[in-house]
């Protein structure tokens, strides 16, 4: 590898780590009550300061949830883009969003008293939709184009269900709407507990899959010629991507932007070698969600903007800028 490429990757990885640290600190500091940085370091050292409760029970878990969601969605999208050989592939395409959306909103609107079941219901719905699409697309093995088309059809079908529910129960639709764009308000330790095993297991599997994803990018024929078991790798890694995205979406709602755009932005900055791209996208994704969540909390305080809106509004133009420049 040339020195230039190496230096460029090192630069961006360091930048991502710096962004991660800065976003984490900012996310714990900022909010309706401002916590000074010194007190945060103090709290980690065991000092009991004025804002100890806020740090431990509100800011820190929410920050961790944001980071894990960022990691899971970015990895999921990055994996799917290689597995499906399609730049538009993201967790939507394998039905994660529509599946989670319909079952989550079903619980929210019809059984509002069981609000605490929204997360497991959404997770179940997401996985069921993904499996369903896989079964529909199966015909002598899996071809990416069939998954994508089956995914579009199933998503449209489930989307109709979501729209119907929202219209029939339009009086209760507010919470469902917030969840549809994705937000992190009131996310705390239980959500961290739900997310971290998936983040850890998914990351490990994704990193072991990195070399296989590199080979898969050369096309199915070349990959097979190099001895890659294309079918098995495709199924296994799609399953990993589905679990990663389902866990994230079930906790924070249908956060659409991260899974599609963060992997692309990372690719434009550090290239398409998945051994670097996956960790890069994970770190960058975590930083992006933490940072956006912080801004969404403080920008229009005391009103909290759903983070999904903010990310799309600022992220999409930035992505277009990168695309034009082809950094």
């Amino acid at each position, binding site marked *: 590898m040339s020195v230039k490429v190496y230096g460029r990757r090192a630069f961006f990885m360091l930048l991502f780590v710096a962004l991660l640290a800065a976003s984490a600190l900012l996310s714990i500091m900022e909010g309706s009550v401002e916590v000074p940085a010194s007190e945060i370091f103090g709290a980690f050292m065991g000092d009991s300061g004025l804002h100890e409760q806020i740090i431990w029970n509100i800011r820190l878990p929410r920050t961790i949830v944001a980071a894990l969601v960022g990691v899971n969605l970015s990895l999921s999208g990055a994996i799917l883009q290689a597995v499906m050989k399609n730049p538009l592939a993201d967790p939507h395409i394998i039905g994660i969003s529509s599946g989670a959306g319909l079952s989550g909103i079903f619980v929210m609107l019809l059984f509002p008293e069981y609000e605490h079941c929204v997360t497991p219901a959404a997770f179940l719905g997401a996985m069921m939709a993904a499996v369903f699409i896989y079964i529909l697309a199966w015909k002598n093995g899996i071809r990416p184009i069939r998954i994508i088309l089956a995914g579009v059809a199933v998503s449209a079908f489930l989307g109709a269900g979501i729209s119907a529910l929202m219209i029939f129960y339009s009086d209760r639709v507010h919470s469902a709407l917030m969840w549809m764009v994705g937000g992190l308000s009131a996310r705390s330790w239980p959500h961290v507990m739900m997310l971290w095993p998936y983040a850890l297991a998914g990351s490990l599997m994704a990193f072991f899959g990195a070399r296989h994803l590199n080979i898969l990018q050369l096309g199915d024929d070349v990959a*097979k010629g190099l001895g890659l078991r294309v079918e098995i790798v495709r199924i296994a890694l799609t399953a990993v991507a589905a679990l990663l995205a389902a866990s994230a979406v079930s906790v924070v709602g249908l956060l659409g932007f991260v899974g599609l755009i963060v992997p692309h932005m990372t690719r434009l900055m550090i290239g398409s*070698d998945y051994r670097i791209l996956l960790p890069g996208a994970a770190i960058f994704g975590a930083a992006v969600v933490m940072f956006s969540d912080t801004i969404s909390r403080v920008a229009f305080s005391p009103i909290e903007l759903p983070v999904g809106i903010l990310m799309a509004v600022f992220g999409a133009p930035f992505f277009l800028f990168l695309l034009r420049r082809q950094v």
Partner: protein
Amino acid sequence: MSVNVKNLSVEIEGKEILHNVDIEFTEGKRTAIIGPNGAGKSTLLRVLAKLNTSYAGQILMDGEDIRDISKKKYARRLAVLPQGLSAPADVTVGALVDYGRFPYRSWHSGSRNEDDINAVDSAIRYTKLEALRDRQVMSLSGGERQRAWIAMALAQQPDYLLLDEPTTYLDIAHQLEVMDIVRQMNREHGITVIMVLHDINHALQYADEIVVIKNHGIYAHGVPNDVLTVDMIGRVFGVKADIFRNSLGASVLSPVSLI
């Protein structure tokens, strides 16, 4: 050492592509497969390369049924360059050639050993790509790009090399350059070459043996001067042709008109 195709029949989506094909590819030779479009040339190559695994019949490599050889082990013995090759925009020549070492690595570890480094270096030297090692594959000219893919196949250190129309889209200088490298690999490394060729003159010039496919089966198989006759070109391609010796004494085919 040889590849033996026994009673091979292939159907793709209900259409018969190859029917009861029996053929033996001899070790150490360069065999060209020619025939009209849609005759089943590429399908035969894809079956040999295990890219197409739904077929009836049997293919023996050195006496072993290729269905019983694991994908990775197969990739250490046989390299294939299909048509329509493409790589992500930022993959460099060095990285691409290194992918040729994939079949030699375990699923969990990607670390390079000395064999890997030597194989990649010598493949790059062999294809004269030293100066382009850090260039992006997709930014190269057609001929250089094809050389990079050949280098990847060479890094697999195979006994067999399968090529599907390796000179498509290249100008005549790059066509000869690619064919020269292939011949040199065959001569110096003893790699058995099986290639689908479009240009019958390339087959005449570079192949030891020629296989002619027509109507889903083998029409003829033998040394170029026996197989490539005016009569055969007329029957297989429906073309009236002239075969003569050029100023260097080599046989040349010149298509004249449709029959």
